């Protein structure tokens, strides 16, 4: 099939880039938590999928327009985010990052089990963003629904940037992340700020979970763990704390992954993603857009 090689390569990269929009959405929340707040929250991907599940379970199959389901997913994500904050971060002293890490692991296990118990582990069908979104241009094929996800991701990115750099909450968040004691001295209420940011990342996570459900077509407990690993990789490649970096890195990882799957098959694909990560860690530890700082 040599005549098809060029077309297939371009198609694979395009497909990968488009699916990478979902990684980008998860990466946005991860990079905000890890990069801006310097807190490791391993339960983030599970909470996002949990938000998507909640949107289905709350409605119990009632016929509701799709955008409303997505909105409900976002709101559920926000609520879960707040719960995660109180369960894992509020009461543990700042000087114990390992304890917060471990408690988020516990939270991840808990959210996974709640999902499994509520659905008996079975996959749930999730409404797509666009019913008939396939676009055929010449020999190429594009998933219209993923283009919408990408645009939504860009919208979220702009929203986050506006939030971080143009609002008081954003200013307070950056202040708390840089120097919590000094921020407190300036009259910023640290716990309030942290809780609010967790709610916002939770909202973002809920939307991401909904988009992933819509892109894949079904929700399953199998989604949470691989998404956590992908989210971490995207955060590191994009640069800790860089919001445009998360979007670009999500697309890059998606494209790279699918292209190497086309070249070398499904068993070696993930090895190449790891190699990409190692290459970044060795040659450019600050990621694509991160500022050049060696401290984590």
């Amino acid at each position: 099939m040599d005549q098809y090689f060029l077309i297939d390569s371009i198609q694979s990269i395009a497909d990968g880039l488009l699916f990478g929009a979902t990684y980008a959405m998860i990466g946005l929340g991860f990079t905000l938590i890890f990069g801006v707040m310097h807190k490791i929250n391993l339960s983030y991907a599970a909470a996002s999928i949990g938000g998507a599940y909640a949107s289905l379970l709350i409605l119990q199959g009632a016929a509701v327009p799709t955008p409303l389901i997505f909105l409900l997913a976002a709101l559920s994500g926000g609520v879960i985010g707040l719960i995660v904050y109180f369960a894992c971060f509020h009461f543990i002293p700042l000087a114990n990052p390992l304890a917060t890490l471990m408690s988020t692991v516990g939270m991840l296990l808990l959210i996974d089990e709640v999902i499994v118990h509520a659905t008996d582990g079975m996959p749930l069908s999730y409404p797509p963003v666009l019913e008939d979104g396939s676009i055929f241009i010449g020999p190429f094929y594009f998933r219209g629904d993923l283009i919408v996800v990408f645009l939504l991701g860009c919208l979220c990115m702009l929203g986050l940037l506006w939030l971080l750099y143009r609002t008081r909450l954003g200013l307070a968040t950056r202040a708390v992340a840089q120097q919590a004691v000094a921020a407190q001295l300036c009259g910023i209420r640290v716990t309030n700020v942290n809780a609010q940011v967790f709610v916002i990342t939770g909202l973002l996570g809920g939307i991401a979970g909904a988009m992933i459900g819509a892109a894949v077509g079904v929700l399953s407990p199998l989604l949470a763990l691989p998404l956590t690993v992908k989210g971490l990789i995207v955060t590191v490649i994009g640069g800790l704390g860089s919001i445009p970096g998360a979007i670009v890195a999500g697309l890059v990882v998606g494209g790279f992954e699918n292209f190497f799957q086309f070249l070398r098959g499904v068993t070696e694909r993930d090895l190449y993603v790891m190699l990409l990560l190692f290459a970044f860690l060795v040659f450019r530890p600050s990621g694509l857009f991160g500022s050049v700082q060696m401290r984590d």
Partner: protein
Amino acid sequence: MRRFFTCMLSAAALTAGLGLGFQCAPAKAEDRPVQVAGFGAMSGVVRVFGIGSEAAMKAAAEKINAAGGIKLGDGTTGKFEITYYDDRCNAEEGINVVRRIAATDAIIAVGPTCSNVAESLFGILQKKVGDSSDSGLQFPIIADVAAKGGLASISEWAFRNVPNEAEMYKALFEWVKKEYPDLKTFYGGFEKDFAHSNATYGVMKREAEANGYQLVGESEWLLNDTTFSNQVRDMRRANADIVAVSAHPFTTCGVLREMSRQGVKPKLLIGLTSSSSIETVKGCGQQAEGLIIPTGFAPVNPEAIEAAEAIVAKGGNADLHSAAAYEIMFILKDVIEQQGIIGKPETLEEDRKKMREGLAALKETKGLLGPVARTPDREAVKPFVFVQAKNNNWEVRHNPGS
């Protein structure tokens, strides 16, 4: 160093105080309880099968007990008492659970759900009966769900009542040849990292080619993959008449959705036995329309319908896996009566040996769809039907037994 050893002793004492929770069998005056333990996955994506197995075992036990119980070797009537344990689809826990069961009065354990647990579990059993140099566990286990090929051959104490996929797909492709004579080519897709799907795909390919179908291409993916555009693109280009998907519901739905997105409509879709459950029609009923799968259970006769209702009444789904557990209880009743098992705590070791002997000696057992042949390597050859997804439900398309 004294402190070191005192700490070790306290730790030992702590451990001894934990891990409790044995079930004590209440002694009844007239009927003797016959303890049978079940175990399987009550956690994770296969939780529905653990629930189904438990429901089926309890439903069957209830039916047997209500119909007069079991005739034990010393003349008393025995009534089944079922305890179900969760192994969380985890090999270490499976081993712990079976050791725990072996320490109770249970004469046999029914399970596991997951093939990887069965691999480890059958590995710790004594390989050949009577081999005194082998310190493996001497306890019979009969599997209801773990479907990976060839597992029972690992140990003589291991038995299975799961469908023989080679037979099923052989019959399926023969039937397809008669029913759809114009189909010539076929394309295969399978989960590469899941042993069961991988192995069954080999079976599908072999049987299809034996019936004269031409393989025009193959695609692979992994168990939790979420995007299939590359694979379906190859499928589209190959434009085969038949597409066979050897994968579990999550990825099967993913592939079917991508196929509908890219406009791939083969003349016939064939699936993996494990996907003939409620998950597939619930997850992607619309895209799965027309999918044909050979399965070990469908409510096609009064007995099967009754069993299905009983299982559902106990909170499980009636599918090929839970039906296997249901059938096992009746097999156990027959073996107990044939071997004259007594069921007293004193005769426990003897009873377990007799259980093993009895199961090994069986040539045929009663299945819900018809008689089940038993092979010398302790597997089962079960009757089957072909079901087809129609309107978000499974309908029987062809019953070879009728």
